[in-house]
């Protein structure tokens, strides 16, 4: 790790001021579970580190009847262990529990993971499936961007220089809704070779009124499997297998390494889409 100056602002305002002041020389530190490892490998060598850990109000998780909010600095464990989330939106704690290990979940943050946009991270899939809105603070004030517009490419997001992700808002799913996250872990790192988040709302007849499927690990950026969703809306659980076959449709470039080929990842996307949808429908019913 190369030397750097460390700043620990107490308010978002002063944090933003530091971000503007130091520009590209600075890196924003959340839980540190992406940034610190890259700095240790000297892949990142910022001269200034701005630690958001002390900023008031960024760690809160709330689960209301209308909206769920997750502060960008909330840890994975805060989501995993939240008292109300299992009933309000079980997909969130289920995803959190699949990340890394207990120590990593204690320290790593939801916002940090999303802003880092590792192609094999778990949260992007779930945020896509829940149509999350990301609140972003920047030099020109605040803006919100939908998850589906946020994940652009390998480690690239819609975040612009000088901007900081501050929180996540999710519309609380209705009563007759259910979600599931399933993944295959890369055997060494625990990251997703393929991970699929599904959130389904059923109509009175037990058919899918709405379907959202997010896929991670398969392409350079997590994506919504719209072809699956289109095939399943209006249909029941019997249509899941056929719909899931479209889970990798439209993917132009697959992630590929010695752990798994692109073909295999595409296949896993289909298998886990089927599993996630089946579970989600089961839970919605």
């Amino acid at each position, binding site marked *: 790790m190369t030397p750097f100056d460390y700043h620990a602002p107490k308010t978002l305002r002063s944090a933003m001021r530091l971000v503007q002041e130091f520009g590209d020389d600075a890196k924003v530190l959340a839980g540190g579970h992406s940034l610190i490892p890259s700095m240790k490998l000297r892949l990142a060598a910022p001269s200034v580190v701005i630690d958001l850990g002390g900023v008031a109000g960024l760690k809160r998780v709330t689960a209301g009847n209308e909206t769920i909010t997750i502060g960008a600095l909330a840890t994975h464990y805060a989501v995993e262990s939240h008292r109300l989330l299992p009933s309000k939106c079980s997909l969130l704690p289920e995803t959190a529990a699949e990340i890394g290990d207990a120590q990593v979940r204690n320290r790593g943050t939801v916002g940090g993971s999303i802003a880092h946009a590792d192609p094999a991270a778990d949260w992007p899939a779930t945020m896509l499936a829940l149509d999350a809105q990301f609140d972003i603070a920047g030099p020109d004030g605040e803006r919100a961007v939908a998850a589906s517009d946020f994940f652009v490419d390998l480690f690239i997001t819609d975040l612009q220089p000088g901007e900081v992700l501050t929180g996540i808002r999710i519309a609380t799913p209705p009563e007759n809704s259910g979600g599931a996250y399933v993944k295959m872990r890369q055997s*060494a790192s625990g990251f997703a070779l393929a991970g699929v988040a599904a959130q389904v709302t059923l109509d009175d007849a037990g058919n899918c009124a709405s379907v959202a499927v997010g896929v991670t690990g398969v392409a350079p950026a997590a994506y919504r499997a719209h072809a699956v969703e289109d095939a399943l809306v209006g249909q029941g659980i019997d249509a899941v297998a056929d719909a899931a076959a479209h889970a990798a449709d439209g993917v132009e470039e697959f992630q590929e390494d010695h752990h798994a080929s692109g073909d295999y990842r595409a296949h896993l996307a289909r298998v886990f889409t089927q599993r996630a949808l089946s579970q989600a429908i089961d839970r919605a019913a």
Partner: protein
Amino acid sequence: MPVSKSVGARIKRREDPRLIQGLAHYVDDIKLPNLLHVAILRSPYAHARINGINTDAAQNLSGVKSVVTGDDVKDVIGGIPCAATDPEGFPGIKVPHHPVLATGKVRFVGEPVAAVAATDAYIAQDALDLIEVDYEPLDAINSAEAAFADGAPIIHEDWDDNMAFTWSIAGGDVDAAFAEADHVVSQRIDHQRLVPNPMETRGVVAQYLPGKDQLNLWSSTQIPHLLRTQISVMLSMAENHVRVIAPEVGGGFGCKLNVYAEEALLGHMAKYLGQPVKWIEGRRENFLHTIHGRDQTGDVELAVKDDGTILGLRYTVSADVGAYYQLLTPAIPTLTGLMLCGSYTFKNVQMNLKAAFTNKMATDAYRGAGRPEATYLIERMIDVVAHDLDLDPLEVRRKNFIGKDAFPYETGTAVAYDSGDYTAALDKALKIADYDALREQQAELREEGRYLGIGFSTYVEICGMGPSAAMPAGGWESSTVRVDPTGKVTVLTGVSPHGQGQETTFAQLIADGLGVDIDDIRIIHGDTDTVQYGIGTFGSRATAVGGTAMVHAMGKVKDKVINIAAHLLESNPQDIVIEDDKYCVRGAPESGLTLGEIAMVAHVGVELPEGTEPGLAESHFFEPPNFTYPFGTHIAVVEVDADTGEVEIQRYIAVDDCGNIINPLIVEGQVHGGIAQGVGQALYEEAIYDESGQMITGSFMDYALPKAHNFPRFELANTVTPSPVNPMGVKGVGEAGTIGSTPAIANAVIDALKPFGVRHIDLPLRPEKLWKLMQET
């Protein structure tokens, strides 16, 4: 040895209190005044010429004390030694000079190029970034096949090809066996390269005391004495002025049975800087520059009769040994050759080995060291024979087993198995597994499209290393047993345990043997200034060889104690017995003497029998007459997910026979850990170098060590067939689990995929491989 009060009991370990409280001292925990921290600059290229190195900027960094390069040390530090280069054993072997810091050329990624000593470990790392090396990259070789290809780049330019050495072994009449065979069953078998990965990486602290001209070297090593000898040679120091200490060592698995560049380099730097130095290996460094295991690829042919009787075996194999030799590199594949016959009666056997230099880290001893290759090969081939001839793999095993009455049994490779009862272990394992029910369950699940597999490994291994005649650097072991005037017992042992628990098992043997409380015994190891010369801990030898040395030394002490007791009790030595930890005349325990009372007499020196030396300490150097041959049956039950190819181990049954057992708790622990490592090889682990010679599995992000949730609860049992090789009847158990488990898992997974016509799959059995095979049919 009869089970008495300590031996045979599940005694909790005496080394644990310091380890569970964070009070142990590993190398990195050693603090010395004025300690400098060393960081090593390593080659980023697999193969390149070094046209120049500029260290000026690094030298000028505040806090940097010194930067050294290969040119600085080439005349003062000798080459890294290899103890297995005897041209009689390896005709025509090429032995390249192996410098501690590269000069002129680098030959693998991670090869040390320069070293920085600084006041702080962070500054030492900063300085590495400031060293400029002018590399001229060359084409790299990442496999034996590539090394032997026409026009391959030459790694060592003293020779005109990359053939490191050849080796062969033959027994019986192989050609006749193949002529007589009804079938020749062939398969190419790959033993992938593995990274040992003890949880503690390597590390060295060196301190030079100019007043005494003494070098103190703390190293995370399995072989403090062998290391001392080699370091003294490399640094041209008198061996009795070098002290090597193996402090607490956090696992080794063979990779610390070696002499490494950093050990000599730090010794040199401590001396010339006049300040103590410390180097602690990072995990990424460990992946690149601590020895690797396995990496053999060969063609196996079995000559087989219609009924499954095996007549002979041929193995033509290439070993990728890396760019240089480490301490035992050439010797490892020879152990494969010795054990090719496994538990089976065929004696016609031939192995022809070609070893290649490649642009990779050296291979050397990794848990099992050559024997896992033999066991995997023969146990896998038994199943291939069963597949090809449509026989039951169990029946093929039983048909070819060496019978229990045949021991001692000389194999086709001329090793003499000491004792065994292979059928008994197999039968016991089958009973625990409820084998018939498992096969029924398998058939039922297949109907549902679920794929259960049952795999066997009926292994035998070679342990208790070993007779000196068969070892590159001595195979004996030593011990001193001394009783202090107050009756406390101190044992000095030449073995160097690093997790195996000899501080406990050795104390158990002494407690029973001398009639003394186990808390009054201390086992000292790992300090060459304290302990007489020894060989170290590896090859499942510590108890079988080191323990035997101690038992003999203890016997000498005991003889003397009994003589003194007889004198004091006015009786004859043959009438003295130990009752309730007292030495007494048989039938008169009330007048007995404790060991302490007798020890005091021995040290006061007044009341001794005539002609008896005062004091109470004896040594013994034990030369084992043979290796030992533990064996057993492992059964794995796995399910392969038809959708994803993922393997779940549902049950794992291991019946091991390691001879007599001193501490069942410790034996279980050794077997558990061994199984986990063998499963790692079967399912997860693989060191991969790409075509440019970069290691693409160089961290825990990409190289998977097994985790807790990868395993079911292991079901363990033993049979006990004492070894006649040592008086305790022990065989050793450090490597059995690793050797037994890899083929059991492989055979189970391949059995699961039998409906898909699968005959063999190379390791590791990654989900994608299995899924693809299931797609093909």
